[in-house]
């Protein structure tokens, strides 16, 4: 057991103790605490909680590496995973908040006055959140496993127990304040290494702009090597795949139930507006930094690792070569490592940076704690949305409407524990790479909730038949395209499985509109409720007139 191990362990245990302490202090006592945190979360803190909820293990560990490997094409993730906040904040969040329900399926069920739509939406929530949480759990397993040099499976189980514990205790109220703490830890952990790397390479403490010259220098290095320039567009996929992926990530953002429900925890439409703005600035801090990480790491690998004697590589490379994340093979046997003889796994970038920049044991431990915070905070939010779909939408709204508050909390807590354990078991042997699993969750959200919610909020003529048909067709087309593209090699304009949401969303919008128009209009009362969403809380629409509450 070396110093590094002990320091990392202490930092992680300290942060865990903090999260559990916050969860216990904010134990949910009423069901409204459990689902919507009593609806009193201030926008700026809600923004941080959205940030932590949003930035998952994939964002923290994987994104910088993905950009490094894909070059310009990887920027679809930067724009896609942030541009969706405009859909969310401008088109959906304030209106959904005014409607005043507890969950996303409940909005759909009541807006269309349809139990089948409610159950279908609850099922979609569970499918999306469950798929996404498998990725998170296997991500946290990788971090724990690599850090403590134990099997990733044992690491996963440790993460599962922790998440089940604090999500079940605190509910949304506990999760909100835990997520605020997790955001602060993860952002500090993400920024320190990149700032130091920027200082070492460019003498500029602001990495966000300083890597421009590095990018241009790498372009020259690439030209010398005769490979396509780092910043050259569309080298890995077609332009249409770039656009389709970007749209899928944006629309998926606006259709993820665990993110939308965060906007239910504030008091007003105004607060929802501000939450979205604060959230994007907090998320932006990490997303502005990821391409800088990518550029610095690639530059170091190109100039300090490639071109050196195989027997004489920098010391930090050894542990990564041992884990197989960095492969060096002297293919032409000249004793020197060439750039094309290096194979780099994409999750090495952020995790290896503290060692590359020689930042010492404390920072390495902090980065590990930050990665854990990213995985746990997202998993916590996902577990709450799974449990609310089951305990609130299905159990309370359909199966047993007479259930007492106590019974409902018990069912909610039990469903969190079961969902976490089940996702944990699947995460032990995940069906795909982390980023791939996450991309599927986004595609499904784009094909189901995005069209359903946009039409539900903005189109009063939409009815129950339309929404049900739209959800089913959207789900079928999205899943069908994912499977056809992934296993059948079927593509349109070179759009692969990760861009499937474009087709799902188009089909769902079309189906929803056509079926709604072909069937009778919804009752006047439901249409009035939709018109009412156009105005702030003080204005009430009733029977063709607008009233002002003074």
């Amino acid at each position: 057991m070396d110093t590094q191990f002990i320091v990392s362990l202490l930092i992680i245990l300290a942060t865990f103790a903090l999260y559990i302490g916050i969860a216990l202090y904010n134990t949910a006592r009423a069901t409204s605490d459990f689902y919507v945190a009593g609806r009193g979360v201030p926008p700026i803190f809600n923004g941080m909680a959205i940030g932590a909820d949003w930035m998952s293990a994939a964002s923290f560990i994987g994104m910088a590496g993905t950009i490094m490997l894909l070059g310009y094409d990887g920027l679809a993730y930067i724009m896609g995973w942030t541009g969706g906040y405009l859909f969310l904040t401008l088109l959906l969040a304030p209106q959904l908040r005014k409607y005043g329900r507890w969950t996303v399926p409940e909005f759909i069920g009541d807006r269309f006055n349809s139990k089948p739509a409610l159950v279908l939406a609850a099922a979609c929530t569970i499918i999306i959140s469950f798929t996404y949480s498998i990725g998170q759990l296997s991500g946290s397993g990788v971090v724990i496993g690599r850090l403590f040099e134990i099997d990733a499976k044992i690491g996963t189980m440790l993460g599962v127990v922790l998440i089940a514990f604090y999500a079940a205790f605190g509910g949304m109220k506990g999760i909100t304040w835990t997520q605020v703490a997790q955001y602060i830890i993860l952002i500090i952990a993400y920024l320190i290494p990149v700032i130091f790397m920027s200082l070492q390479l460019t003498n500029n403490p602001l990495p966000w702009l300083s890597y421009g010259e590095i990018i241009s220098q790498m372009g020259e290095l690439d030209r010398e090597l005769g490979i396509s320039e780092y910043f050259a567009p569309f080298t890995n996929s077609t332009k249409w795949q770039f656009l389709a992926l970007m749209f899928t990530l944006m629309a998926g953002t606006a259709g993820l139930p665990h993110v939308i429900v965060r906007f239910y925890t504030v008091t007003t439409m105004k607060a929802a507006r501000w939450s979205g703005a604060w959230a994007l600035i907090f998320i932006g801090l990490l997303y502005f930094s990821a391409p800088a990480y990518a550029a610095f790491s690639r530059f170091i690998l190109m100039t300090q690792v490639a071109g050196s004697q195989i027997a004489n590589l920098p010391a930090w490379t050894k542990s990564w070569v041992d884990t197989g994340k960095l492969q060096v093979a002297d293919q032409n046997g000249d004793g020197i490592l060439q750039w094309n003889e290096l194979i780099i796994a994409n999750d090495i970038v952020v995790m290896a940076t503290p060692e590359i920049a020689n930042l010492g044991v404390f920072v390495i431990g902090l980065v590990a704690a930050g990665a854990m915070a990213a995985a746990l905070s997202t998993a916590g939010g996902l577990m709450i949305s799974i449990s609310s779909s089951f305990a609130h939408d299905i159990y309370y709204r359909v199966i047993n409407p007479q259930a007492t508050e106590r019974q409902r909390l018990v069912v909610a807590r039990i469903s969190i524990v079961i969902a976490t354990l089940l996702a944990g078991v699947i995460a032990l042997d995940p069906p795909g790479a982390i980023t791939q699993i996450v991309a599927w969750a986004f595609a499904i959200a784009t094909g189901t909730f995005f069209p359903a919610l946009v039409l539900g909020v903005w189109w009063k003529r939409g009815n129950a038949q339309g929404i049900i048909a739209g959800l089913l067709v959207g789900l079928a087309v999205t899943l069908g395209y994912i499977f056809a593209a992934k296993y059948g090699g079927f593509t349109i304009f070179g759009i692969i499985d990760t861009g499937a949401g474009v087709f799902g969303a188009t089909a769902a919008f079309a189906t929803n509109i056509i079926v709604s128009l072909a069937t009778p209009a919804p009752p006047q009362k439901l249409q009035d409720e939709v018109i009412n969403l156009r105005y702030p809380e003080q204005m009430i629409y009733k029977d063709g007139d607008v009233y002002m509450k003074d």
Partner: protein
Amino acid sequence: MRKIEKRQADAYFKEKNMYTLIYFILWFIVSYGVVLFADSLTDITFLGFPFHYFMGAIGALATFIILLFANAIIGDKIDRKYGIDAKRNEEIGANSTVDH
């Protein structure tokens, strides 16, 4: 509760929608627009970056953030212009939700 002109409420809705449309046009130009023409923007340099790369990594996201803050601030202004009281909204918002 007093009745107000439906016309006034509709003007509120229209004004908000007009701004939303402007935000989405700008949003589209900085993200999809730049990607569509990325091939022809590679030779322009901006702050040391090739321009298309700058927009993808920094420019688009910075624009998104500015648009959302503009929306929050202008949204508050429109509310005030139509005599909406934020404090009163908070009271209504805290009490009008379905409680079950």
